[in-house]
């Protein structure tokens, strides 16, 4: 019965993909049907994955094997069910939002492609997570990459999109290449494409396979230094797609890493340290770059890098604990990583969707041109505020609950024997705390600049609240953020794990009590009248939006404190009329933020490859005689080789 539900969900997604493509007409009903398919499929997937998650047993599907070695099969165990649930919940809300959003965007019949692509993308992600062997895993991984590329390129007529698209294409295929390499190496090691456990100390081949797979998944999930595609691809793609990519696709990469670490490899200590180092670097640098951004969606993209870093820290900690013989702490760390994956999916899609509404209302992505939107879009503002509270890891919301699990794992890691490792873990802990506090600063800046104060442009002045469906989708996500935070302990207990997590329900209750109490005391002791009067504007008669503290201004102290990390290049050219450089003629000055990773890592590698391909291209000179010579040389070489070996 449950197996059939899964097939039905897949068929719904397939229908949602095919219908708007086959019937090529620009009608709303087509898109509604298509997104309706996503919604139904998501509902089915949720009902399917919940019982498996609580522990009703694994669902197996008979494998389809067209040619001996290669087979396509599905298996849904608890890990897969968890990620299926994550995909389903986010797709459900994104589809609800898109029902309305797609009608408000331009593009005519091209919008059919958007909903078809969304369905294909969700389908591919579901298939990756449910894949039973490495061959089908890779197949669907490629499908996911292709579908997401189409969606990133959706607004291809905007000048910045093709560059972002190409960047994404290259990076995502680099990831696929590494994953393929890893899977092939595993095949050499074990002789099959099945996801089977390699017991004992990993051989050199298995270690290489792990490194390849780690690189592949790190690129796909945006771990620094492979992160550069995120801040390009997200601003370029439509907001619901950004939400799906950031909230779900990055998690599919996390799923891949977890699947291979848990089910295939027997990890060693240094693997955990490696994952932890990359995770910590991404978390800290991600949030520091996010602080500097004033493009709302690029900021959210950097914040995704930060959160993926936190998830990787959890995974790395799991491996370190597991290999140090501390299974209880390992479980806490792993639960923290998994729970944070789910929580990040919820609040990041919430933030991307509400950011999409804001961008739609103000026609700009620059937070310096927003402001005062809380009066114009009150519900969107409240939803964005909930998302900000969750992502800033404030109790009693869900972001805090999962970070607390990782904190607890770090705090209790003192039972590890090796002192050097202990000091290293405490350094990671300190950076983790820094990350979480900086993300609070980052989202005070985001919420403050976008929603509070006065509008800084005419578009923001004229902004209007969104229609109900564009509030319902994010609304469900916001509710989920609150519920998963307040009932974090209960949810984890229900899943069958005992963790030393404080009862956030009690804390929430106490907070509410104190709130009511304070309000009641003031209600009875203090006058209830209030007056609305001008803010003091330093002697000015009225306040001007231009005098307001901007987003740039807000992050300035942190900019200066972390200035060694932001490499800037200052150009100051001046021309003078006289030779003593006294009478100024003309000049230009510029302070430019260096894209460190791009200029020192990506471009040199790209240039190297370009040079290599140019060298190889010289062999192909278009002259028939040369090609005959190549054939002759090859035959000669073959003859010599065969004679030698015989």
């Amino acid at each position, binding site marked *: 019965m449950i197996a059939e539900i899964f097939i039905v969900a897949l068929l719904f997604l397939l229908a949602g993909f095919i219908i708007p493509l086959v019937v090529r007409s620009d009608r709303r009903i087509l898109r509604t049907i298509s997104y309706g398919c996503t919604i139904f499929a998501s509902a089915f997937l949720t009902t399917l994955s919940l019982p498996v998650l609580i522990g009703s047993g694994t669902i197996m599907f008979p494998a389809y094997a067209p040619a001996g070695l290669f087979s396509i099969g599905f298996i849904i165990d608890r890990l897969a069910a968890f990620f299926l649930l994550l995909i389903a919940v986010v797709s459900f809300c994104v589809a609800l939002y898109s029902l309305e959003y797609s009608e408000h965007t331009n593009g005519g019949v091209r919008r059919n492609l958007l909903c078809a692509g969304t369905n294909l993308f969700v389908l591919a992600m579901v298939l990756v997570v449910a894949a039973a062997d490495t061959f089908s895993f890779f197949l669907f991984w490629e499908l996911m990459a292709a579908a997401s590329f189409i969606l990133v390129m959706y607004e291809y007529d905007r000048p910045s999109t093709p560059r972002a698209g190409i960047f994404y294409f290259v990076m995502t295929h680099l990831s696929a290449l590494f994953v393929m390499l890893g899977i092939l190496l595993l095949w050499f090691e074990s002789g099959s494409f099945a996801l089977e456990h390699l017991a004992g100390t990993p051989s050199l081949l298995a270690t290489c396979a792990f490194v390849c797979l780690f690189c592949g998944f790190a690129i796909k999930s945006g771990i620094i230094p492979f992160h550069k595609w995120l801040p390009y691809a997200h601003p370029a793609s439509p907001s619901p797609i950004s939400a799906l990519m950031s909230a779900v696709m990055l998690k599919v990469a996390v799923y891949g890493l977890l699947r291979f670490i848990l089910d295939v490899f027997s990890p060693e200590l240094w693997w955990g340290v490696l994952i932890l180092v990359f995770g910590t670097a991404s978390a800290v640098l991600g949030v520091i770059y996010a602080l500097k951004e004033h493009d709302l969606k690029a900021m959210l993209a950097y914040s995704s890098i930060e959160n993926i870093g936190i998830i990787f820290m959890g995974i790395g900690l799991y491996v370190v604990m597991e290999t140090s013989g501390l299974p209880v702490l390992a479980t806490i760390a792993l639960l923290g990583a998994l729970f944070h994956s789910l929580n990040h999916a919820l609040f990041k899609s919430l933030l991307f969707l509400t950011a999409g509404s804001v961008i739609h209302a103000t026609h700009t992505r620059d937070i310096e041109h927003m402001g005062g939107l809380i009066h114009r879009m009150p519900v969107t503002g409240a939803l964005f505020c909930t998302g900000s509270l969750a992502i*800033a890891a404030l109790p009693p919301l869900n972001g805090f609950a999962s970070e607390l699990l990782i*904190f607890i794992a770090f705090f209790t890691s003192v039972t590890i024997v090796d002192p050097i490792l202990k000091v290293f873990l405490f350094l990671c802990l300190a950076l983790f705390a820094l990350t979480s506090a900086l993300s*609070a600063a980052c989202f005070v800046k985001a919420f*403050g600049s976008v929603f509070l104060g006065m509008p800084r442009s005419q578009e923001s002045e004229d902004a209007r609240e969104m229609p109900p469906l564009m509030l319902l989708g994010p609304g469900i996500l916001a509710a989920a953020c609150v519920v998963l935070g307040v009932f974090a302990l209960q949810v984890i207990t229900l899943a069958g794990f005992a963790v*030393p*997590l404080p*009862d956030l329900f009690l804390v929430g209750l106490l907070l509410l009590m104190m709130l009511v109490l304070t309000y009641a005391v003031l209600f009875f002791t203090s006058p209830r009248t209030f007056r*609305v009067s001008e*803010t003091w504007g*330093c002697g000015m008669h009225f306040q001007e939006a231009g005098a307001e503290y901007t987003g740039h201004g807000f992050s300035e102290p942190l900019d200066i404190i972390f200035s060694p990390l932001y490499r800037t290049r200052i150009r100051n050219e001046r021309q003078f009329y006289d030779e003593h450089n006294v009478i100024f003629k003309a000049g230009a000055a510029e302070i430019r933020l260096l894209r460190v990773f791009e200029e020192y890592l990506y471009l040199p590698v790209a240039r190297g490859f370009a040079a290599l391909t140019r060298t190889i291209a010289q062999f192909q000179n278009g002259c028939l005689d040369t090609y005959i010579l190549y054939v002759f040389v090859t035959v000669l070489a073959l003859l010599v080789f065969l004679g030698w070996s015989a």
Partner: protein
Amino acid sequence: MSTDFILYLLLNTALVLLIAPLFSGLIKKVKAWTQGRQGPPLFQQYFVLVKLVKKEVIYSPNASWVMRAAPLVNMAAILVAALFVPLVFVPEPVGGIGNIILFMYLLALARFFMALAGLDAGSSFGGMGSSREMSFSAIIEPTTIIVFAALAIVFKSLDIFAMFAGSLATGTLATPTLILIGISLFIILVVETSRIPVDNPETHLELTMVHEGMLLEQSGKNLALMELSAAVKLTIMMALLINLVIPAGLALTLTTAGILLAALLFVLKGSVLAVIIGLFEASMAKKRLFQVPSLFAMAFFFSTLIIIIEVLA
């Protein structure tokens, strides 16, 4: 939840609310004396709060619900955080109340809303205050967490209740580590409660202000809440330091005599600490904004030292 715990909730909240304005008044008094001034009366803070509650609230036309909600949320978060630090009586912990990480993040919750309120009116002063407050709180965080982690190592628990009980069991000033932790906690106290040399709680000048800048738009009962919550925060940070380093007198059982004695001792110890804070402030100058991070870096290396000593010992 036992009756003991419910009594603890009531007792701790009442005590912290009653005593908080006294300590901040005492610090002001000490500072005035060192400067050769008479200073406001010791109980001036209470009068100020009563006066503010009686006054009308004024909102900016730009202000939204954030401005109205922030003082309440701030106060509620600080009051719940106050429940995590027993002043006089240490009960059995219930449902993770007392978890030191949760305590840290409740303070962050209060700060988050205060910073949003600073931005809400669109005044450049408020924005400046919020920006600086969030920056400082972010870069002190590694130090705070390392000190808390060191505490967790020393007392083998994440629970502040258990830490106090453990400190009480081993006696006063037990280890050199505890003294080091005490010094680090003192620096954190100074930063968290916006005191000299990080911030100046006395002035509203744009060059010095951080915390006060955020409150510039607040008035009436909202300002009263903000002031009271700042005083409560000061008191609980002081209590954390006192009850870890000099825990003598803390009650572990709920008897009237024990509680009274503990309360008396706490007020006494708190007053001494308040005098020390006052003298410390009076002997320091406010640091320039961008020299503050180097102070934090010093505090960080200091606290890392504790960890290294603890780990290698």
